[in-house]
């Protein structure tokens, strides 16, 4: 009886093996494709500007532009000066940069990743030349033509963001394009003879507020992390 059953048992085992193996291989293939996709995204995409950092920067820039514009129009009695213009914008740059790095560090810690990740190194390497060149050029022009400084900062900030386009999410590329077009547009206005001589500081504050303020607020609104419906807390 037992001997009679053995061939059947072997037959069933073989049949089962042919059914199960393709299924497990397929699951394994799907799992491996998931691993590859997630590793590639992690390794190639780096978001150098966090949404909360952008919102803080955008709101700060808007507030400074409104206040600076009011001072430039003489609303507070005392005349607007270039050191005051530089002090406000460089102060905001320092505060926002520190806040952005703290937010990026918090995000990295939450994902159990190193803060100075390969992605961050790549982003810094790509962006620093443009940022440094823009910063220095802008400072060089600030005492003679602050509106040109603002246009330089806008243009080269856009160039810096676009330099990271190969490994940045699409939103950063769009932000870079917006700054690049705005900076080019400002220079086009200057080149075609638009006169800002009457109030260069007001022009500079307006250009900074409309770009660094408005663009960053829009970027933050579009990239703010949203909780998926039904996701766990």
């Amino acid at each position, binding site marked *: 009886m037992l001997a009679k059953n053995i061939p059947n048992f072997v037959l069933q085992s073989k049949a089962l093996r042919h059914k199960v193996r393709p299924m497990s*291989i*397929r699951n394994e293939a799907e799992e*491996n494709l998931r*691993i*590859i996709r997630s590793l590639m995204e992690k390794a190639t995409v780096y978001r150098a500007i966090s949404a909360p950092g952008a919102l803080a920067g955008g709101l700060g820039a808007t507030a400074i532009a409104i206040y600076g514009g009011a001072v430039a129009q003489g609303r507070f009695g005392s005349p607007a000066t270039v050191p005051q213009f530089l002090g406000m914008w460089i102060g905001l740059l320092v505060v926002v940069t520190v806040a952005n790095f703290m937010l990026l560090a918090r995000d990295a810690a939450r994902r159990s990743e190193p803060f100075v990740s390969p992605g961050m190194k790549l982003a810094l390497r790509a962006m620093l030349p443009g940022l440094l060149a823009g910063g220095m050029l802008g400072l060089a022009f600030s005492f003679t033509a602050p509106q040109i400084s603002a246009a330089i900062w806008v243009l080269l900030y856009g160039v810096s963001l676009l330099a990271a386009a190969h490994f940045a999410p699409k939103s950063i590329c769009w932000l870079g394009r917006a700054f690049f077009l705005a900076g080019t547009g400002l220079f086009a206005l200057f080149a075609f003879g638009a006169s800002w001589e009457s109030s260069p500081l007001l022009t500079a504050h307006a250009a900074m507020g409309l770009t660094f303020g408005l663009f960053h607020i829009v970027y933050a609104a579009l990239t703010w992390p949203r909780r998926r419906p039904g996701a766990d807390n």
Partner: protein
Amino acid sequence: MFDFEKLDKTIHEKGRLGIMTLLATRPTWSFQDLKAELKMSDGNLVTHLRTLHDAGHVSITKEVLDRPQTTYGLTVKGRTAFSEYLTVLEQIVNAGKPPQ
């Protein structure tokens, strides 16, 4: 019936698959960056890299800049093997799907 022997067994192992994937994203990776991204121990990573190097998939470059640094990259053979491996995985997944 799909021929499972087409799968490159050197790449198919999870740890080595991770290494090959990262190496496919950039021309070179340092040991420390690979270790940080894959969260592997030094010993594990060295062993997998050696296996891939022995199979001709990974090139190793040793440089002395400020300090000695070893960087890893995919060889032409490795890039081709990875690309073929991906094609095979896609074929396996598609083979199990009902016809459209």
